[in-house]
C-alpha cells in the first residue's frame, strides 16, 4: 500500500508530472502553503476539489476577530497573503475590544465572500510556480524509509513529489447532519474527500473525528432590519496588511453595517421542545464539537440561567442579499430551524436560503506532527488547518503558511522555521496543537498566549518581519520600509523621553482639559504620555518639534511608553521561558533507557520526540521531576561526548 509499485498493476494510472511540493486542498491553509512554496522558488502543484470554491468562507463571512486578527497581522508580517487579500474584499471593518487595552485590540473585517474567493483564485492563477489542478487526491505514496514521494488522484494521475502539505479542511470522510437527515457531503453541499484519510492512517498517522457547524442564511428582502440594533463599521481602521498600509490601501469609506438581535422566550421554547430531535443529544453525532463555538441548542442546554443569547446578522457580500446569522448554528432538523428563525425579532417572515447543519470530518491527532508541522510518521508530509484539529480560517492560514515554509525548507535542505510562544500567536497555536494535542476543534484565544502584552496586532511586523525577510518571503523593498518604520518609532520614543516641558499656562490648560493633575516642575513628554488620561494627540499643541508620522508609528510609540512597566515584566517572564526553550533535545535520545524517567514520561517522550526541554515540559504526563532528570542526563551525555572526543584526539 502507498507505493509507486502499484502503478504497474493499475493500467488506468499514469505518471502525471513531477513537482517539489504538492499542496492538497486550496482553502485558507492550502493557499498560504502554495504561495509560500511558490514564493520560495519551488515548483508547486495545488489540488482542489472545487476550483470555483477556492479560499471559501463556508461559515462566517468575516476575517479577523479576537486573537484571530492578531494571527492575520502575523501572517502578513511574515509574508503570507491572507491580510492582503482580505483588505481587497472587506465591506466592513472594526477594531474589537477597544476598551480592554491595546494587547487585545483585534481587527476584524466582514468579507464579500464571493469576491474573496474569486480574487484569491485569480492571484493563484497568475503565480508562476503554482500549477492549479481540480482533482481529488485519494492516496499518498512513500518509499521504504517512510519518505513521501508521490500522490494519486481519483482518476489515476500520479505525481512525483518531494514533499506534500495536506490541508483537507472539513472534507475528509465528511457527513452533514440536520436532525434525522444525514448526508455524505462536504460543506455547502460540495462533494467530500474519500480515501485520503485511510491512506494517512495506513502511513501510521493516528486519526480522530471532529464536528463543527454553521448557521442558516436568510434573504435580506424578507427581513425587517429596522427593529435590529445597527453595528456600523469604522472606516478609519488600518488595513490588515502592512504592505497595503504602505501602499495607502485602506478599508472602504462606505461600509455595510451589521445588525444584532436577541433570542426570545419563544426561541428557547422551540429549541427545548425539539431537543429530542437533536442529533447531538440523540447520539447520532460521534465527532467532538468546539466548546468555544457552540450551537444555539448547546448554549441553551449548557447555560440554563442565561435566558437569551445575542445573534449577529451579517451581510455576505455586496452582490448578494444573503445574510448570515452568527451565533445561531444548529444541527436541529430543517423544520425546527424555520420555527427558530421566525422566533427572532425582525425575522418572523425570514426566508431561509441555506439551512444550518453540523458537519463531521476526519482529522489527525496533531501530536503525531512536530513543531514544523511535519508528520513524525511520514517524512515530508506536512499538515495544516482543520486537519490538525484547529477551527477557523485564520488558524488554518497561519498553519498553512508555516507548513508551506517548512515543506520548502525540507526540500531545500534547510533548517525548519519554528516560532516559539513568546514570538507569535502562530507559535502558541502550533505548540499547543502538536505538544498538548486537542480533543475538540481548537480556536485561538488571547488567553492562550502567556505573553499577550508583547504579542499585539500592532507590533506583529516588529516581531516577525525580520524573520519573514530572512526566510525570503518579504521583499527587500518592503523590508527597508519596515526598517524605516522601526527607526521612526525608536527616534520618536527617544525624542519624547528627552524633550522636557517647563511648567506653563498652556501646559496647565491642557492638563486641566484632560482631567490630569498639574505639574509644578519640568516634565518630559514621555512622562506625560505615561499618564493614563493623557494621549499623544492631546499634547500636539504644546509639542513643537513633533514630526509628521504614520498613525501606526504613533500607536506603537504610545503603547511602548504607556506599557513600559508591563513590557518590562513581560520581558522578564520571556527570559525565564527562554531558558528551557533554548535547551535542545536531539531526536536520537533513548528515552526508553533513561532509568530516572517515570514510565509514562519515557513512552510519551519517545513517541513525541520534543525539540526542546521547554516543549518536553509542556507534554502532559511529563513531570517537573522528569525534566530535572533530562537536564542531568543531557549534561552527563555532553561530558561523555567530550571525553570520547578527547580520547580520540589523544589516541
Amino acid at each position, binding site marked *: 500500500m502507498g507505493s509507486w509499485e502499484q502503478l504497474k498493476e493499475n493500467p488506468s494510472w499514469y505518471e502525471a508530472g513531477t513537482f517539489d511540493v504538492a499542496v492538497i486542498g486550496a482553502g485558507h491553509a492550502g493557499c498560504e502553503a502554495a504561495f509560500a512554496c511558490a514564493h520560495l522558488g519551488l515548483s508547486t502543484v495545488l489540488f482542489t476539489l472545487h476550483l470555483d470554491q477556492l479560499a471559501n468562507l463556508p461559515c462566517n463571512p468575516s476575517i479577523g*476577530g*479576537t*486573537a484571530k486578527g492578531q494571527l492575520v497581522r502575523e501572517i502578513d508580517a511574515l509574508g503570507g497573503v491572507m491580510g492582503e487579500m482580505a483588505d481587497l474584499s472587506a465591506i466592513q471593518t472594526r477594531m*474589537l*475590544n*477597544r*476598551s*480592554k*487595552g*491595546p*494587547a*487585545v485590540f483585534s481587527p476584524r473585517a466582514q468579507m464579500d465572500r464571493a469576491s474573496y474567493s474569486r480574487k484569491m483564485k485569480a492571484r493563484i492563477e497568475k503565480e508562476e510556480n503554482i500549477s492549479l489542478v481540480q482533482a481529488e487526491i485519494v492516496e499518498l505514496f512513500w518509499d521504504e524509509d517512510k519518505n513521501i514521494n508521490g500522490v494519486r488522484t481519483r482518476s489515476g494521475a500520479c505525481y512525483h513529489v518531494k514533499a506534500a502539505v495536506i490541508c483537507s479542511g472539513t472534507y475528509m470522510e465528511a457527513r452533514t447532519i440536520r436532525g434525522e437527515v444525514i448526508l455524505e457531503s462536504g460543506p455547502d453541499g460540495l462533494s467530500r474527500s474519500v480515501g485520503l484519510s485511510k491512506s494517512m492512517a495506513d502511513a501510521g498517522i493516528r486519526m480522530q473525528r471532529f464536528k463543527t457547524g454553521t448557521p442558516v442564511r436568510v434573504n435580506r428582502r424578507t427581513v425587517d432590519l429596522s427593529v435590529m440594533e445597527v453595528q456600523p463599521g469604522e472606516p478609519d481602521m488600518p488595513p490588515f496588511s502592512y504592505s497595503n498600509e504602505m501602499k495607502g490601501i485602506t478599508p472602504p469609506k462606505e461600509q455595510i453595517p451589521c445588525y444584532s438581535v436577541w433570542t426570545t422566550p419563544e426561541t428557547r421554547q422551540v429549541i427545548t421542545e425539539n431537543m429530542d430531535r437533536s442529533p447531538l443529544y440523540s447520539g447520532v453525532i460521534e465527532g467532538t464539537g468546539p466548546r468555544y463555538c457552540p450551537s444555539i441548542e448547546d448554549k441553551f442546554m449548557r447555560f440554563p440561567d442565561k435566558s437569551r443569547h*445575542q445573534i449577529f446578522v451579517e451581510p455576505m457580500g455586496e452582490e448578494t442579499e444573503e445574510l448570515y446569522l452568527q451565533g445561531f448554528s444548529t444541527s436541529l432538523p430543517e423544520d425546527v430551524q424555520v420555527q427558530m428563525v421566525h422566533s427572532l425579532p425582525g425575522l418572523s417572515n425570514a426566508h431561509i436560503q441555506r439551512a444550518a447543519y453540523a458537519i463531521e470530518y476526519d482529522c489527525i491527532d496533531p501530536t503525531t506532527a512536530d513543531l514544523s508541522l511535519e508528520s513524525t510518521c511520514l517524512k515530508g508530509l506536512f499538515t495544516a488547518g482543520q486537519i490538525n484539529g484547529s477551527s477557523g480560517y485564520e488558524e488554518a492560514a497561519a498553519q498553512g503558511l508555516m507548513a508551506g515554509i517548512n515543506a520548502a525548507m525540507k526540500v531545500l535542505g534547510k533548517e525548519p522555521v519554528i516560532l516559539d510562544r513568546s514570538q507569535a500567536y502562530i507559535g502558541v497555536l502550533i505548540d499547543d496543537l502538536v505538544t498538548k494535542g486537542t480533543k475538540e476543534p481548537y480556536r485561538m*484565544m*488571547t*488567553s492562550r498566549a*502567556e505573553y*499577550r*502584552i508583547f504579542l499585539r496586532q500592532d507590533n506583529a511586523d516588529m516581531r516577525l518581519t525580520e524573520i519573514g525577510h530572512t526566510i525570503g518571503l518579504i521583499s527587500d523593498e518592503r523590508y527597508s520600509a519596515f526598517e524605516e518604520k522601526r527607526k521612526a518609532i525608536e527616534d520618536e520614543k527617544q525624542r519624547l523621553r528627552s524633550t522636557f516641558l517647563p511648567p506653563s499656562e498652556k501646559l496647565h490648560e491642557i492638563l486641566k482639559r484632560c482631567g490630569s493633575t498639574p505639574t509644578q516642575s519640568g516634565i518630559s513628554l514621555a512622562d506625560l504620555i505615561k499618564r*493614563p488620561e493623557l494621549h499623544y494627540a492631546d499634547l500636539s499643541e504644546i509639542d513643537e518639534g513633533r514630526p509628521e508620522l504614520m498613525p501606526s508609528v504613533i500607536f506603537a510609540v504610545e503603547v511602548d511608553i504607556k*506599557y513600559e512597566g*508591563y513590557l518590562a*515584566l*513581560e520581558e522578564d*517572564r520571556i527570559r*525565564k*521561558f527562554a*531558558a*528551557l526553550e533554548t535547551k535542545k533535545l536531539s531526536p536520537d535520545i533513548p528515552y526508553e533507557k533513561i*532509568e*530516572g*524517567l*517515570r514510565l509514562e514520561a519515557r513512552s510519551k517522550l519517545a513517541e513525541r520526540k520534543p525539540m526542546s526541554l521547554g516543549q518536553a*515540559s*509542556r507534554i502532559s504526563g511529563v*513531570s*517537573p*521531576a*522528569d*525534566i*530535572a*532528570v533530562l*537536564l*542531568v*542526563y543531557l*549534561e*552527563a551525555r555532553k*561530558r*561523555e561526548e567530550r*571525553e570520547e572526543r578527547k580520547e580520540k584526539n589523544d589516541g
Partner: protein
Amino acid sequence: MDKPYCACATPPGVSGIAVIRMAGDGSAAVADKVFRIVRAAGDAKTVAEMAGYTLAYGTFIDPSDETVIDEVMLTRFCAPHSYTGEESVEISCHGGLTVRQEILRVLLENGARMAGPGEFTKRAFMAGKLDLSQAEAVMDVIAADSELALRAAESQLSGSLKEQVENISAVLYLQLSLFEMFLDEIEEEDDNETKIHYAEELENSVYKRLSELTDSYKQGRILSERMKIVICGIPNSGKSSLLNCLSGYDRAIVTDVPGTTRDTLEVITSIRGIPVKLIDTAGIRKTDDVVEAIGVDRANAAIGEADIVLWLVSTDEEEKTITDLIDPIMTLPKETKIALLISKSDTSDEETVKKQEEKVMALICQKGYSRVPDLCGSLSSATGEGLSKIEEFIRNAYDEMGATSSVGLLVTNRRHFEVLSSALEKVGKSIAALRRGDPLEGPALLIRAALEDVGEITGKSVSDTLVDTIFSRFCVGK
C-alpha cells in the same frame, strides 16, 4: 542578566567565623559597593582589581548610611576557577547570626539575590565542576524516588503553609480565568464598576492573606535574626546597669539621678549564642520635662514591639509606681515574654526580695489580670548575682519560640518570603490598576505573573526554576 546570588556557606548556629558566598557575573561589582579594602594582595584598591585566589582585609559596610557591619576577610575567585565556575567572592565574617544576617541583607539590597536551594551545587554541576560519577549519583537519587522528587518543592514546606499558598493560588486562578474570559469575550466592553468589584475581591481574598503570610515572616525572622529585649521599669530601678551587665561593657551612663536615661538605647549583642537587641528605655513615669516625656513615649513604643520585656522593680519601690506599669506591661501581646526582676542593693536580703515579688503579684491580681510574669528572682548589678538566671530565661524563651509553629510563624524561609513578597507586590499593583480603571489586560498580566511566583513554592508551574527542586536536597551554599 541574572543577578549574582548569595547564601551563607557555613551551617546555621553560632560559630567563631562564618563564610558567606556570592557567585555569578557581577559578584565583584556588588562586593565593591559594600566592602572597603584596608589591605589586599597586590595592593588592589577594589575587589574587581584583585587577582583570583587572593585575599583582602577590610570593612563590610552598609552603603545606605555608611555604618560598619563587621571587619571581614574577602577571597576573590575569577571565572572559571571557582566552585561554580563563575566569578565569585567569599566573605569570612564573625560568626554571630546577626552579623551574617546583616551582611546578607546588605548584599541583597545592593544587587545580589538569595541563592535558591542547592543552587551552588547545581551551578557547579552545570559548569562541569562535578565529575561524571557525581552526575550519575545525582541521577540515582532521582531514579530512586521520582515520586519524592516530584514533591521536592512541597517537602520544603510545612503542611499549613502549603495549604495556604495553594488556597491563594486557587483564588488567583479563579480571578485570572474571570479576567481571561472577559478579555476573550468579543461583545463585552470594559466597565469600571466590575473592575472595582474585582479589586475588592482580590483585596479581601488574596491580598490580605498574602500580606499575612509575608508579615508572618517578620515574626519568623526573629528566629534567625534577633530577639528584641526591652528593659523597663520606673526611673532609677537599675535598668542601665542591667544593660551594661548583659552586654558586658559600660554602654549606658549610670547615675543615681532618676531619669538619667532619657532616650531608648539599643545594644546589639549575643547572650548565650542568641542574637539579641537589648533596648534600654527611659524610666516610665509621669513627667513635665518635655525631653523626658519624649523618652517615655519611646519607651512605651519599644515595649510594644518587644519579644521579651525585662521588668525591673527595686526592693524599695512603692505600690503606686508599680501599679502604674502594670497596665502597659500586662496588656502586651501574649507572645511577648515578661520577666519580673527584683533589683536589690547589696544590703537587701532574700526575704525582702520575696516580699517585693509577692507584692507585685498581688497588685497584678488586684487589677484583674490572670496573666502573671515569669519570676526571675533578684539581681544585683554590682556583683552580677542573678545574671545567669536572666540569661537562662532568655535562652528558654528563644527555644520556645523556635518550637512553636503557630500560624504566626508560617514563613521562616527567606526564599519563600521573597517569592511571596513579589507576588504580593504584583497583586497590589493589579488592584491599584483596577481601581484606576486601567484596561483589564494589565491587571491580568500582573495576576498571571503573581501566580507564576507562588507556583515556585507549590512546585506547580513548570519553569526552569522547578529544576531547582531536585537540587534542593543539597544544602544551600554548599
